[in-house]
């Protein structure tokens, strides 16, 4: 504490009063204990700086020090105020404590809210500890069509209290998926955030389509002529009808893959559609076809069950 005050403030012997004032202010801003609530070393340094300034900041005392009439500790006045530093009062959570530094975290997380404590008040508030609690979640069920689940849609849900909420069904929604609508649940208590609305989705069946993850499976009837000779046919898909070339000599059970014609994914792309060809004979017996089959030697010789054993 009895260091040379010029060294403590970091100024030269011939520094002007203005230089000394500037040096002191700079150090005070850096070392003031209330600006360094957790740093004991800063407090000691601040005391030394204040003591040095008490001498050098006063031109008359400075002259006496320079003449050797008083020593560096001669007029030391401890800067500690009688009530103690403000920092010693502040942390107890008095009237000035502010939760503005973390209030947003408490809103999001019940656990953090409990850990941080809800005692801190916002400055200018009415006073008194506040009790804040997030509102409860509301659960609801929603039945949607197969194609709405595949392509996405907006559906209206009626809640137990009679109110309605529009629910956005994202494309690719699956059976049993739960959609969470933030803040659409029960209102919070004491200014706490509202709960969430949880909608469990059940997806209906489709007459033609089946779903396997992001792919669509479809049985497609083809005529004997189309199967034998091949050709272009129109195929319905969830993404709209598409023209497909059936290769010449396609068998029943042949699977054609239509890329990007399946279920819409999160990234905007789509899964695939798998079309299984199913050979369909004419509705009524056809004389020409029968006559042809009678004399078709290769057809008679073919054994499609070759290698099959009971």
């Amino acid at each position, binding site marked *: 504490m009895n260091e040379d005050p010029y060294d403590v403030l970091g100024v030269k012997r011939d520094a002007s009063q203005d230089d000394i004032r500037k040096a002191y202010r700079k150090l005070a*801003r850096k070392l003031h204990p209330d600006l360094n609530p957790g740093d004991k070393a800063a407090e000691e340094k601040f005391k030394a700086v204040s003591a040095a300034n008490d001498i050098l900041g006063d031109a008359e005392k400075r002259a006496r020090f320079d003449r050797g009439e008083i020593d560096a500790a001669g007029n030391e006045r401890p800067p500690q105020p009688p009530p103690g530093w403000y920092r010693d009062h502040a942390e107890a959570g008095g009237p000035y404590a502010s939760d503005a530094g973390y209030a947003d975290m408490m809103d999001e997380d019940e656990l953090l809210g409990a850990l941080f404590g809800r005692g801190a008040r916002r400055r200018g508030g009415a006073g008194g500890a506040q009790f804040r609690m997030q509102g409860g979640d509301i659960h609801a069920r929603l039945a949607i069509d197969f194609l709405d689940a595949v392509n996405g849609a907006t559906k209206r849900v009626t809640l137990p209290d009679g109110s309605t909420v529009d629910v956005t069904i994202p494309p690719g929604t699956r059976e049993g998926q739960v959609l969470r609508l933030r803040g659409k649940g029960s209102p919070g208590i004491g200014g706490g955030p509202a709960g969430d609305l949880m909608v469990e989705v059940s997806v209906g069946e489709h007459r033609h389509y089946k779903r396997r993850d992001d792919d669509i499976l479809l049985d497609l009837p083809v005529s004997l002529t189309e199967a034998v000779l091949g050709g272009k046919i129109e195929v319905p898909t969830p993404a709209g009808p598409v023209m497909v070339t059936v290769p010449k000599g396609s068998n029943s059970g042949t699977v054609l893959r239509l890329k990007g014609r399946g279920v819409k994914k999160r990234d905007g792309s789509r899964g695939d559609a798998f079309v299984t060809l199913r050979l369909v004979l004419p509705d009524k017996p056809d004389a020409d076809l029968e006559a042809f089959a009678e004399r078709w030697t290769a057809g008679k010789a073919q054994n499609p069950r070759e290698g099959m054993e009971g």
Partner: protein
Amino acid sequence: MAEMNDRLRRLRLQATMLEAWVSAGWIAPETPEYSETDLARACLIRDLREAMGVNDEGVEVALDLLDQIHGLRRALRRVGDVMHGLPEPARQEVLVILRELDEA
């Protein structure tokens, strides 16, 4: 009253100044008398303005940030106290999670 004036003089504070700081919202006494906390806060304001050369707008910002820091320190201390009070297996679990966070 005379006692308080004496007290203020020893703290190098003036009654008129304190009143101005109350109107500015920097000090908010809960009773007609200034509490120890109010006086300590006033000394901080005095230091900000005199020792550190902070202007009035700066004082406002500094106080607001300090209030937040003290709120955070209090919250942090609470979390620390809870951690210390945890049974040993739970403490170890928290330490493992924190280590994993550091490595991530």
